[in-house]
C-alpha cells in the first residue's frame, strides 16, 4: 500500500508497484515475453511473405497487380493476406510495448513536495514512468533485501541496486570511487538491517522513488532514470553521505557530478531538438518571408551568428538563463537595444551565441522571429580608412540593415566605435540609426569600457545595460562540465571530477587577471594536452595534473604536498637554522606560518603571513627573510625587497602603486603582479612616511591592493616581512639587564613603538617578533657559518678549506660588535680570510686537492695533497 504521494495538476502520483518475488519474476518474464513476441512475429511475417512470393511465382507473378488476384481465392493470396495481417499485428505490438500506460506529466507549475497519501482511489501509479534501468535498480534493490532476509527495501538497497547502471558507473569513475572502496562498509551496514518476511518497500525507499520522480519532472525528462534513484537515495540516507565523505567525496562534488551528467543529457536532447528546428532556418541573407534584401556591404564586415548556429559552430549555453531572459525582456518590453557588460572571459559572446540558438529555434518573442543575428566586426569596418570614410562605411552597412528589416545587430566591444575611429561620430551614427529605424542591437563591453566610454557617450542613452557577472564556483563548474566533453574528444583523455573542480578552484584562487569560466576552460584544455602528451590516449586527467599546469603558469605550488615535501616542511626549523643562528622564536613562528600555508589551513583572503621583525642591526632579520624565500619560494630571487628609507615623503606612494594617469603600475604592485608567489621584504620600515604605511593596512587585511591603472593586485600568495630597528636601544638594554623576551616585547608594543607605528598597524601583523642581540656563542656559530661559506666557494676549484678552532674563536672575538651584530664579522672574514686565500691563489701556491688551513693570527697554511 502506498503511503506517500506527489500532487500535480490535480492528480495524485504514487509508487504502487507490487514488490514481491512473484511480481518481480512476472515483470522480468513480461519483459522477455515482449521481446520474444517481437522476434516470433517478425519471423512469422518474413516466412509468410516468402511463402507468398513462392506461390506467387509458381502461379503468375504479374497477376499480383490485378484486382482479380486480391478478390479470387488462391494460396498466394492467403499468404499475402496472412503476411499483411502479421505485419499489422507486429506494428501494433511495437506501438503498444513502446508506449507507457501513463506519460510523464508536463507542467510549468512548481513541483509539489512529497506528502502523506490521503486516499488511494484515483491515484496514478508511476511504475511505468520508470525507465527499464530504473526498474532494474528497484528490482535489484528488492532482490538484495529479500536475499539478505531484510524486512524492508531501504534507500541503501536502492543505492546498491543502482551501481550496475552505466551512468552511475560514470559518476563513480569520475569521482574516483570504486565498488571495492565502499564494499566493506556497505556490507557491515547491510548486516545491521532488521530482518523480516516478506520484504516490503519501506516508506523511506518510497520517498526516494517519489523524489526521483520529482527531479525527473523538474528536469523535464521523459522518464525516471536509475541516476535519479541513485541521487535521491544518497540524499535520503546520512550513512551514504558519510560513506562517500570517507572516500573524500562530500555533497558538493557529488551533486556537481550528477549535474554534469544531467547537463550532458540536456545538451544531447537540446541538440536533437535544435537540429530539427534548424532545418527551417535560412542560412543566407534572405529570410523565410522574403522581406529582406541582399546585404553585400554588411556581409563583408560581419559574421552571421544564426547561420553559424544552424551549422553547429556555436557552443551550447549553460547557466545563463537569467541573463538571456533579461535581454529578451528588455528587447520585447522596452523595444530597446542591450549592452552586455562583463569582464573578459565571463561569457558575453557565449550569451550572444545562446540568443542566436534561440532565434534558430524561434523560441524568442515575435519581434525577434524570422530574423538573423549578425555580428559586426568594428576592426573590419574601420580598417585602412580615416574617420569620415569609416562613418560612410557604417552608414552603408546600416542602410542595408534598415532595408533588410530582418537583422539584429550584435556588436562586440562597442566602445571601439568611440575610441578606435577617433571620433564620437560612429557611435552617434549608430544611435541615430537605431532610434529612427526601430532596429535593435545587442552589444558587449567590459565594465571599464562601459564606465569610461559607453556610459558617457550617446550610446549610454540608447543601450540598456545588462550585467553579466562572473559565475560563482558551482556555476563555473557546470559551465566547464559542459565543455569537458569537447575537450575530452579533442585530446582523447578523460577528466576526473576532481580535475574539473580543481581547474575552477585553482584558477579562481591564483589567476586573478582573468575571469571564470574562460580561465578554467583554458587550463582544462592545456592540462588535457599535457596529459595526452605525457601519458598517452585514454589517460585520466587528475587534480594533480591540473595543479601542475596552474603551478607552471603562476609559479605557485598548487599540487598536494608530496611525501618528500612533508619531511621538508616538518624539518623547516632545522633547515632554517642552517642559515640563521639563534632567534629560535622567529624561526619557529615563520616555520609554523609556512606549514599552515602549505596545508591550506590559512585564511585564503589574506597574505600567507605578515611579520614584523624588530631588533638591532646584524642579528639575522634580513637573513631569515632570505632563508624563507629560499626554503619556501624556491629561491632567494623570489624576494621583492623594498628599502623603505626611500619612501620618506608622502608623494613617494606613487612609486609604490603608480602615479595616477600614468597608465603604469608602481614598483611594488608591478613586482607582485608579475611574481605573485614571493616574499615582500619591507626593510627599515620605521623610516617610511606614516601615510605610506596606511596602504599596507589594506594589504594585510584583504590581501589586495589597487594600483594606479585600476588593477587589483593579489597579495594572498605573498609573505610580507617588515624589518625595523625601532626600539633597538631598549632591546639591547633590556637584554643586557637579563629581562624576559616576552616582557621586552610587551613593553616594546605598549611604549617604545607607540611613537613610531600606529597601534592598528602593529595589530595587523600576524606576529611581531623580537630578535635578540647576539651572544658570544651565537657569534662563534656565525663565524663557523661564514667560514663554511668560504669553504663552499672554494669547493668548485677542488680546494678544501678548514679553520683551526683557536682561529675561529679569534675571528669571533675580533669581529663581534654589540652595536652592529654580525655585519662587522662578515667584513672581517672577507678582509682576513678571503684576501689571504685570493693572494695564495694568485701566487699559484694552491693547487687542486690542496687544503687551506686558517690559523690563529689570520694566516693560512697550505697542506699540499699527494701527487696523483
Amino acid at each position: 500500500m502506498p503511503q506517500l504521494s506527489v500532487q500535480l495538476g490535480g492528480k495524485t502520483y504514487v509508487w504502487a508497484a507490487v514488490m514481491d518475488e512473484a511480481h518481480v519474476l512476472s515483470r522480468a518474464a513480461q519483459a522477455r515475453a515482449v521481446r520474444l513476441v517481437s522476434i516470433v512475429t517478425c519471423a512469422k511475417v518474413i516466412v509468410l511473405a516468402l511463402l507468398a512470393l513462392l506461390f506467387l511465382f509458381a502461379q503468375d507473378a504479374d497477376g499480383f497487380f490485378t484486382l482479380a488476384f486480391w478478390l479470387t481465392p488462391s494460396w498466394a493470396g492467403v499468404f499475402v493476406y496472412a503476411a499483411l495481417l502479421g505485419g499489422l499485428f507486429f506494428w501494433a505490438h511495437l506501438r503498444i510495448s513502446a508506449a507507457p500506460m501513463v506519460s510523464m506529466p508536463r507542467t510549468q507549475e512548481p513541483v509539489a513536495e512529497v506528502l502523506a497519501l490521503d486516499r488511494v482511489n484515483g491515484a496514478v501509479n508511476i511504475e511505468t514512468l520508470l525507465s527499464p534501468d530504473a526498474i532494474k535498480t528497484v528490482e535489484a534493490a528488492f532482490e538484495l533485501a529479500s536475499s539478505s532476509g531484510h524486512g524492508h527495501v531501504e534507500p541503501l538497497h536502492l543505492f546498491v541496486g543502482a551501481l550496475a547502471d552505466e551512468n552511475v558507473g560514470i559518476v563513480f569513475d569520475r569521482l574516483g570511487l570504486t565498488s571495492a572502496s565502499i564494499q566493506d562498509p556497505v556490507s557491515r551496514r547491510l548486516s545491521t538491517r532488521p530482518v523480516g518476511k516478506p520484504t516490503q518497500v519501506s516508506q523511506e525507499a518510497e520517498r526516494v522513488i517519489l523524489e526521483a520522480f520529482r527531479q525527473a519532472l523538474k528536469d523535464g525528462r521523459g522518464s525516471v532514470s536509475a541516476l535519479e534513484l541513485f541521487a535521491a537515495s544518497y540524499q535520503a540516507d546520512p550513512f551514504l553521505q558519510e560513506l562517500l565523505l570517507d572516500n573524500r567525496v562530500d555533497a558538493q562534488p557529488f551533486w556537481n557530478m550528477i549535474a554534469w551528467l544531467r547537463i550532458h543529457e540536456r545538451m544531447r536532447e537540446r541538440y536533437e531538438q535544435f537540429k530539427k528546428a534548424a532545418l527551417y532556418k535560412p542560412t543566407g541573407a534572405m529570410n523565410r518571408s522574403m522581406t529582406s534584401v541582399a546585404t553585400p556591404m554588411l556581409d563583408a564586415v560581419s559574421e552571421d551568428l544564426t547561420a553559424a548556429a544552424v551549422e553547429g559552430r556555436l557552443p551550447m549555453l549553460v547557466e545563463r538563463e537569467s541573463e538571456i531572459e533579461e535581454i529578451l525582456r528588455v528587447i520585447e518590453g522596452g523595444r530597446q537595444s542591450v549592452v552586455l557588460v562583463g569582464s573578459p572571459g565571463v561569457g558575453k559572446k557565449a550569451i550572444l551565441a545562446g540568443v542566436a540558438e534561440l532565434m534558430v529555434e524561434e523560441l524568442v518573442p515575435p519581434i525577434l522571429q524570422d530574423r538573423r543575428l549578425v555580428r559586426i566586426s568594428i576592426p573590419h569596418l574601420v580598417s585602412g580608412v580615416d574617420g569620415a570614410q569609416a562613418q560612410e562605411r557604417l552608414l552603408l552597412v546600416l542602410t542595408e540593415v534598415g532595408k533588410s528589416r530582418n537583422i539584429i545587430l550584435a556588436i562586440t566591444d562597442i566602445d571601439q566605435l568611440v575610441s578606435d575611429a577617433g571620433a564620437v561620430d560612429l557611435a552617434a551614427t549608430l544611435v541615430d540609426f537605431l532610434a529612427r529605424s526601430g532596429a535593435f542591437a545587442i552589444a558587449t563591453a567590459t565594465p571599464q569600457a562601459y564606465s569610461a566610454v559607453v556610459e558617457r557617450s550617446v550610446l549610454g542613452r540608447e543601450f540598456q545595460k545588462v550585467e553579466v557577472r562572473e559565475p560563482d564556483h558551482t556555476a563555473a563548474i557546470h559551465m566547464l562540465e559542459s565543455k569537458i566533453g569537447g575537450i575530452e574528444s579533442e585530446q582523447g583523455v578523460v577528466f576526473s571530477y576532481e580535475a574539473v573542480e580543481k581547474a575552477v578552484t585553482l584558477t579562481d584562487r591564483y589567476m586573478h587577471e582573468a575571469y571564470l569560466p574562460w580561465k578554467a576552460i583554458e587550463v582544462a584544455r592545456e592540462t588535457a594536452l599535457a596529459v595526452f602528451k605525457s601519458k598517452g590516449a585514454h589517460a585520466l586527467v587528475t587534480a594533480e595534473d591540473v595543479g601542475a599546469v596552474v603551478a607552471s603558469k603562476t609559479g605557485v605550488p598548487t599540487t598536494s604536498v608530496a611525501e618528500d615535501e612533508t619531511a621538508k616542511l616538518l624539518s623547516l626549523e632545522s633547515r632554517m637554522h642552517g642559515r640563521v643562528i639563534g632567534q629560535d622564536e622567529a624561526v619557529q613562528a615563520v616555520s609554523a606560518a609556512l606549514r599552515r600555508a602549505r596545508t591550506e589551513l590559512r585564511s585564503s583572503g589574506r597574505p600567507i603571513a605578515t611579520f614584523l621583525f624588530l631588533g638591532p642591526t646584524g642579528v639575522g632579520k634580513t637573513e631569515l627573510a632570505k632563508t624563507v624565500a629560499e626554503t619556501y619560494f624556491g629561491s632567494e630571487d623570489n624576494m621583492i625587497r623594498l628599502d623603505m628609507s626611500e619612501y620618506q615623503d608622502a608623494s613617494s606612494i606613487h612609486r609604490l602603486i603608480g602615479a595616477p594617469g600614468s597608465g603604469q603600475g608602481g614598483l611594488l604592485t608591478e613586482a607582485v603582479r608579475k611574481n605573485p608567489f614571493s616574499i615582500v621584504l619591507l626593510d627599515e620600515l620605521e623610516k617610511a612616511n606614516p601615510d605610506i604605511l596606511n596602504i599596507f593596512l589594506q594589504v594585510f587585511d584583504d590581501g589586495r591592493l589597487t594600483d594606479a591603472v585600476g588593477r587589483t593586485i593579489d597579495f594572498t600568495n605573498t609573505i610580507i616581512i617588515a624589518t625595523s630597528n625601532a626600539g633597538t636601544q631598549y632591546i639591547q638594554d633590556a637584554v643586557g639587564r637579563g629581562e624576559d623576551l616576552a616582557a621586552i616585547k610587551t613593553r616594546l608594543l605598549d611604549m617604545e613603538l607607540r611613537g613610531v607605528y600606529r597601534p592598528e598597524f602593529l595589530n595587523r601583523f600576524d606576529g611581531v617578533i623580537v630578535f635578540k642581540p647576539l651572544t658570544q656563542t651565537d657569534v662563534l656559530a656565525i663565524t663557523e657559518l661564514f667560514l663554511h661559506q668560504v669553504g663552499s666557494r672554494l669547493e668548485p676549484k677542488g680546494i678544501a678549506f678548514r679553520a683551526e678552532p683557536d682561529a675561529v674563536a679569534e675571528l669571533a672575538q675580533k669581529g663581534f660588535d654589540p652595536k652592529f651584530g654580525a655585519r662587522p664579522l662578515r667584513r672581517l672574514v672577507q678582509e682576513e680570510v678571503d684576501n689571504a686565500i685570493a693572494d695564495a691563489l694568485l701566487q699559484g701556491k694552491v693547487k687542486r686537492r690542496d687544503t687551506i688551513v686558517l690559523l690563529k693570527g689570520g694566516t693560512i697554511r697550505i697542506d699540499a695533497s699527494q701527487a696523483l
Partner: protein
Amino acid sequence: MITPSKQLVVRTTVSLAMHESLFLPLWWYSRGLLETAEWLLASVRGSVKFFGVDVWVKNLFVPMYGDASIPGRFISFGVRLSMVVVRGAGAAAWSVLAVVLLFAYVFVFPLVLFGFFAHLIGVLA
C-alpha cells in the same frame, strides 16, 4: 539477479500474444486510432511550417526584398498571393494525403482480415 524460469517466460509469451491478438481490434480503433490521428495532425501542422504558409500569409502585405514603392508593393502582393496559393496547395495536398492515410488506417484492418479469411475459405472449399 532474479531470473524467471523458461516455463514462466513461455507461459507469459503465449498469454501476451493471445492477449494482444484478442484485443488488437479494440486497440486498433481506440488508442491506436487516436495516436495515428494525432501523428497525422502533427504532420499536417509540420507541412504548413515546411511550406511556410503561415509566414507568407502573415507577410501578405509586406513588400518583398525591401521594395516599398507602390509598384513594388503591388508586385509583392501578387507574388505573395500566388506563393500562398502554391504553398497552400502543397500543404493541402499533404493534408489530403493525411486524410487518405487515416481512412486507410481505419479500413486496412478489416479489409486484410476479410481478405485472409475469404481466400482461405475459398481455397479450402
